[in-house]
């Protein structure tokens, strides 16, 4: 029977073969002809993971780390693995409610899905971490602690200098110039201060690791044993000119005051201390409560984010007189022997401008005029400078005068290595034309000779001007970073170049200004600045300031100013101190500056001056309204690191 059915057997065999041939031809197309599938498989299975290097550490001039990396922990949750745990206990440790627990789990599920870990509680406080670590076995495998390096400010000081890092913003990521092309969403970037300026140095070089992932994007291990990986390179460390002792001491003395301190080493331009009061504990912006603290600080009445040392400009008042003198000497319009017959006021400009002294001979020459801070003398010097026949008219004279000040770094940005610096104002011809509608002469702004009127400078500029005088004619661009570990780049070169400004001035002329400033300290208004065994030069200032309140110009309480340097020969420190609305220069600015100079030069504070330090630390000069609404003090006391600061402070004060 089977014989008859042979053809049918053939048909069935043909059907089998036909189907298999169809499958084989399809396989040939899929596996041999088409190449996209292997790419698709790789795209499926490979995960590119960025490895973050540790950020560079920042040291002060004595090698103490002022900013370092601290290991904090995030509690991560993988919702699917959360099974049979003591929820109540976990809630208790984290001090959250049961509802909050459920909400966070739901959030995690929504954000990353049930099988990938996401943050349940970020940057745990050390106490919480300690408690959790002990009992972690109870919550695994659903919960895991993951290390998260965080910037830690050792002494809780130097907030404005060091700056902070935070997550990169969407607008930065959208920036088309490609500056941020190396960053991804969620990356941290330096926002202010040195963290911002030296971002590229501190961040190091990211590594890339290729991982194999599964269908739920869970990493399963390295690809090809890490053959294609690039290693991460740690960020480089910065070594600052900053002296953390001075910084902490300065911040302590500026407590309760509005104003700033800038101290520079004139021989290098390195900044020894820069305080803007009120300041804040930078640790507030690192760690668990960043965003809450940021909002509180941002809204605080004392505006703690405002770095008054480089962002605020003040009328320099009498502290400007040495500059007026120098310009006049350099232009050659006067000699150090030039005298002015002041008898208690200046009347050559059609109105009588009072001087604090009226005894004859108090402005017999540059030195005495400086020592007595004669208003008339320096106003007259200004007029002589701009009206000099050399320039052929006051317009050119004013332009020349402005360019002198610009050379000294006044009225322009100095180029310090933290962002946000402002120019200040030096009245150039354009400004004069604008203010006086095109018609003005040397009398219009005669006040600038004594540091008032259309002239405002930043504390940094005032301190830098002191460097010029201390160095007798040159300065280095003020900067924080002295060196970068293992770095040969040209980044710091501009801070190593001497900038000469007053080349025509003889040493004799300089001496008359400097000796006048020394007289101010030995027998003038800045007697409080005397330090035993050190020849200190300085100049106080009491700057009038007016503000427009409700449309009316109101005379506010004067700013207290002091500028100076020491020692007179071979100067080591130049300083500018401003305390807003605190009255005479000698009351606050002088003692604060003097204590800092003493500390820096002798590394100690003499016992008899301890009460002054105490007084400075305890006195509040900011207005009652401002103080009442401000929460800055309570915020600053939140941190454990503030105890480390207190330890250092106590050590400084105990010597």
């Amino acid at each position: 029977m089977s014989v008859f059915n042979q053809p049918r057997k053939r048909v069935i065999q043909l059907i089998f073969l036909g189907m298999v041939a169809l499958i084989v031809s399809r396989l040939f197309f899929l596996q041999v002809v088409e190449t996209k599938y292997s790419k698709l498989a790789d795209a499926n299975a490979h995960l590119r993971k960025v490895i973050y290097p540790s950020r560079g550490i920042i040291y002060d001039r004595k090698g103490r780390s002022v900013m370092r990396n601290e290991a904090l922990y995030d509690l991560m949750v993988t919702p699917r693995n959360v099974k049979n745990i003591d929820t109540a206990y976990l809630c208790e440790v984290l001090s959250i409610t049961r509802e909050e627990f459920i909400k966070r789990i739901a959030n995690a599920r929504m954000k990353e899905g049930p099988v990938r870990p996401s943050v349940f509680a970020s940057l745990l406080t050390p106490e919480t971490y300690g408690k959790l670590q002990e009992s972690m076995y109870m919550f695994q495998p659903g919960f895991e602690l993951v290390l998260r390096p965080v910037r830690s400010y050792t002494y809780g000081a130097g907030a404005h200098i060091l700056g902070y890092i935070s997550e990169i913003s969407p607008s930065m990521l959208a920036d088309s110039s490609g500056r941020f092309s190396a960053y991804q969403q969620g990356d941290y970037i330096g926002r202010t201060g040195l963290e911002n300026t030296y971002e590229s140095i501190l961040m190091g070089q990211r590594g890339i690791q290729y991982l194999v992932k599964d269908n739920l994007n869970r990493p399963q291990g390295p690809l090809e044993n890490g053959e294609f990986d690039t290693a991460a390179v740690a960020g480089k460390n910065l070594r600052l000119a900053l002296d953390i002792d001075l910084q902490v001491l300065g911040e302590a003395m500026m407590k309760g005051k509005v104003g700033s301190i800038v101290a520079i080493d004139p021989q290098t331009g390195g900044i020894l201390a820069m305080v803007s009061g009120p300041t804040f504990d930078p640790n507030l912006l690192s760690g668990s409560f960043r965003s809450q603290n940021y909002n509180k600080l941002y809204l605080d009445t004392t505006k703690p984010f405002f770095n008054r040392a480089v962002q605020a400009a003040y009328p320099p008042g009498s502290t400007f007189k040495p500059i007026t003198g120098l310009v006049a000497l350099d232009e050659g319009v006067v000699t150090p022997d030039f005298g002015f017959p002041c008898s208690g006021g200046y009347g050559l400009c059609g109105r009588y401008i009072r001087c604090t002294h009226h005894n004859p001979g108090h402005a017999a020459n540059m030195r005495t005029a400086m020592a007595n801070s004669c208003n008339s003398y320096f106003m007259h010097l200004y007029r002589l400078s701009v009206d000099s026949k050399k320039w052929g008219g006051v317009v050119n004279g004013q332009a020349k005068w402005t360019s002198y000040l610009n050379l000294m770094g006044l009225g322009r940005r100095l180029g310090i290595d933290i962002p946000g610096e402002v120019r200040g104002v030096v009245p150039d011809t354009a400004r004069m034309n604008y203010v006086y509608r095109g018609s003005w002469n040397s009398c219009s702004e005669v006040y600038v000779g004594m540091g008032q009127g259309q002239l405002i400078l930043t504390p940094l500029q005032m301190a830098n001007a002191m460097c010029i005088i201390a160095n007798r004619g040159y300065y280095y661009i003020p900067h924080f970073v002295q060196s970068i570990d293992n770095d040969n780049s040209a980044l710091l070169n501009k801070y190593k170049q001497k900038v000469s400004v007053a080349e025509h001035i003889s040493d004799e002329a300089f001496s008359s200004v400097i000796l006048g400033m020394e007289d101010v300290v030995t027998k003038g208004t800045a007697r409080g600045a005397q330090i035993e065994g050190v020849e200190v030069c300085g100049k106080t200032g009491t700057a009038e300031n007016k503000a427009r309140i409700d449309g009316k110009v109101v005379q506010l309480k004067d700013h207290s100013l002091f500028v100076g340097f020491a020692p007179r020969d071979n100067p080591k420190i130049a300083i500018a101190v401003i305390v807003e609305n605190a009255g005479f220069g000698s009351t606050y600015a002088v003692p604060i500056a003097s204590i800092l100079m003493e500390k820096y030069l002798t590394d100690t504070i003499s016992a008899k001056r301890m009460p002054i330090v105490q007084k400075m630390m305890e006195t509040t000069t900011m207005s009652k309204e401002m103080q009442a609404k401000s929460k800055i003090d309570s915020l600053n006391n939140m941190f454990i690191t503030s105890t480390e600061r207190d330890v250092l402070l106590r050590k400084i004060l105990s010597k």
Partner: protein
Amino acid sequence: MNRPQAKLTAGIDWPIFGMYLALVFIGFMAIFAAEYRDGDNVIQNLLSQNKNWARQVLWFGVSMVLALGIWLTDSKFFTATANLLYAFGILLLLVVLAIGTGVKGSNSWLELGGFRFQPAEFTKLCTNLALAKYLSSMETDFTKMRSRLIAAAMVLFPFGLIILQDETGLALVYFCFFLVMFREGLPGILLVIAFSAIILVLSALLVDKFILLYIFTGVAALVIYFMRREIRRKRSRLAMIIGVWAFCAAFVMVIVPFAFTSGKVLKDYQVRRIEVMLGKENDPKATYNTRQSMIAIGSGGFWGKGYLKGTQTRLDFVPEQSTDFIFCTVGEDFGFFGSILFLGLYVALLFRIIFIAERQRSTFSRVYAYGVASIIFFHLAINISMTIGLAPVIGIPLPLVSYGGSSLMTFTMLIFIMLRLDADRQMVLR
């Protein structure tokens, strides 16, 4: 019983037995590759039976016991109990309809003391035996319409019951028995009609129905023109042509749109699977399975990525990878070359079964063997077509290779009954 008592293996067809073992072994290796992760403790997994490959070893053991049992059974037992088994199979299908347990949308599983069992797999065996029994009986004259209808009914009854369990894939396999019936004398025209029907369905889905209507009308007109002399002689020819035309038109215009949109004939997901296969659906969710499966096989290239090196299967991108999509592992790890060898093994098995079928003296044994070949062929064709995007996603296992106890045991029984019958091919069985 004329086989020597001394030799247990006397009369066994070694090629089939060898290919059977080879396929089960390949299956085990593929399941292992789909599941094994670096660092797994193989011994522990095997002992604790917490992996599919470990359980497959157990199922293989059980299957071997079954095979031994079958081998020791008298061939007459199968002819004698064929109808009884068929009745039992139908009963199981009815029971499962009533109390079945759901697994992934179909209610085709029975739970027996922790073990799950799919009667639809088992009834293939029963139907094959019963069909062989019917076609080989003295009273059956397969040239008669009545016999053909009875045979068709024997196949379509379990088919209907399985459709009711929502196991479309398993049900479709029952059409393989028409191949057997074709071998036993069903007119060849039926194959042509079946083939045309498939073409008709596909074109109805792919081509606009109005264009199809014009084509049908044009073809009908041409046929009438060329057959005008014949039609003049026999008027009924015209009626037939118009009848076919009318059926095609109705099918394209009414039946297919109704089936695909009403939700009453085809389930929503079935419609989508078919559309995925035809390339009409681009929703990544709906195409995920097929897409990942094609990526897995396609990325294998000519030589494959090497055993245990496939990223698609090892990293769980391919769904159901130890059961329905087991071929992905072969395709990815061993490439085109390995796939050809793998398919070659199946073809060799199928041809060997046909060879065995044709050497039988009893119609029962021949029909039964053809049934085995057809069942394996349908499973193979549908399963592999599904993994490479030629067929919609239909969940049926790859014979002897896919993980699954019901499937492995059923195919083992199918093959070993055939081997038993073949060993006794000198006997005339009815």
